[in-house]
């Protein structure tokens, strides 16, 4: 475990020393700040719309941070050849993959924590209402969804040589899952065999990231999700993380790194 934590530590150190990460982070916070402080049309109910827009922005930013950060991890190590002195140490390739995953996921978690604390403080200052458990459920589900995205991107970075192509593919896949996946079963019903089975198989095989989108909990202060379903959703995410990471370890184990 020490090796995994050591690699994760370097990933986090790299992130906070990179300027592009800060720029995205600060720009998101600034936009949220400006939007939340403007009272458009002088209407008190507009706060909900502003909250929705701000949370959408937080979602987009977190996905951009997760995908761009993760997709360059191993390709950059190969390109800069820092992989050679690293793998010349008693470090297994699986430990390297797990360390990269942990580093990126923790970095996403820290970013989300900042976003949600900032957003929560801002909206509470306007509404004088602190739905802490709602924020907790929304943030934790969001973080676990990012775990699936990070693991999937890490697998992609081992399959595709260039980090830019991997990032693009991951954005398309994640976007498609979030917007289209929930409708695939209905689409399958309208099709004939064997296409119907194919679409159904895809529907059941892909990780349904849209299940983790519970922004309405925060925006409309909906009642809490049952803790049982909440835990099952976390297990569902962990299952997909395990599948993607196992595949990544298997792919990386067979690769020559000269």
């Amino acid at each position, binding site marked *: 475990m*020490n*090796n995994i*934590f*050591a690699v994760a*530590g*370097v990933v986090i*150190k*790299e992130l906070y*020393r*990179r300027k592009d990460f800060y720029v995205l982070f600060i720009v998101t916070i600034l936009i949220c700040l400006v939007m939340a402080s403007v009272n458009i049309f002088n209407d008190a109910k507009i706060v909900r719309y502003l909250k929705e827009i701000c949370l959408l922005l937080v979602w987009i930013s977190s996905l951009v941070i997760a995908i761009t950060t993760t997709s360059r991890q191993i390709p950059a190590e190969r390109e*800069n*050849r*820092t*992989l*050679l*002195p*690293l*793998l*010349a*140490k*008693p*470090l*297994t390739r699986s430990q390297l993959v797990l360390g990269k995953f942990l580093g990126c996921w923790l970095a996403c978690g820290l970013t989300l924590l900042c976003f949600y604390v900032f957003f929560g403080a801002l909206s509470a200052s306007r509404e004088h209402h602190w739905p802490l458990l709602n924020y907790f459920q929304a943030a934790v589900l969001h973080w676990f969804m990012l775990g699936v995205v990070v693991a999937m991107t890490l697998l992609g970075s081992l399959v595709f040589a260039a980090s830019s192509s991997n990032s693009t593919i991951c954005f398309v896949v994640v976007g498609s899952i979030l917007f289209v996946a929930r409708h695939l079963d209905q689409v399958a019903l309208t099709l004939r065999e064997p296409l119907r089975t194919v679409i159904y198989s895809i529907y059941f095989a892909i990780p349904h990231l849209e299940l983790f989108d519970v922004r309405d909990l925060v925006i409309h202060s909906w009642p809490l999700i049952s803790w049982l379903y909440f835990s099952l959703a976390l297990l569902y995410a962990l299952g997909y993380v395990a599948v993607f990471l196992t595949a990544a370890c298997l792919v990386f184990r067979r690769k*020559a*790194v*000269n």
Partner: protein
Amino acid sequence: MTPILQTQKLRVEYRSRELRQGTKIALHGLDLEVCAGEVFGFLGPNGAGKTTTMNVLLGFVPPTSGSASLFGIDVRQPISRQRIGYLPELTYYYKFLTAEELLRFYGKIFGLTRAEMDKRIPELLKLVELEHAANRPIKSYSKGMQQRAGLAQALINNPDLLVLDEPTSGLDPLGRMKVREIIQRLKNDGKTVFFSSHELGEVESVCDRVAIVHQGELKAVGSVSEVTGRHTSLEKAFLEIIGFQSSPTL
């Protein structure tokens, strides 16, 4: 003496993705033994198979057939690298880290405790004369400083075997002299050093034994005097062994 680095009938084939190029054989059944306490020079022209041999020894490339072991452990086991230090030909380190952070990171991977690192890191930085730059990011270092930081990371675990891939490549005469001094000091401390180089004068001055590879095959192995033989220098012996003939017009 028991060899601590051993290859037996080591063969490596690279399959080209382009069908027309087929398979390239990088090593043809290489048999090599390096014993404890030796400084062993691994020589050969470009493309001879030196780096491929090192890549197999370090687990970067799997052998097609044959075997390779370090301290009697198959190189495919990561634990075989617990007692080695490796310096690549060019400096490849995390530029955003300082030398001290880099050494701490690699120290953690070797399982060193915080107390061990607190003692070892200042010693190493002193050895490679980087104490004054320990807290500067590596990206601000000159090439010579980066190479010395590389040497420090190769020594973090106090290795019994050092694998150095052209350690003086691209360094100025002062940098080369410092690296040579460090190798000499390691030799005096009883460490085993396995290194590849094109600097035959340097090899002659520090090595106990040398091996010459050419086109993936071992052409000669023995002490410097044995390999030099009837020739006046190792360079002349090397040129004859690899079959080099100077152009009559030159």
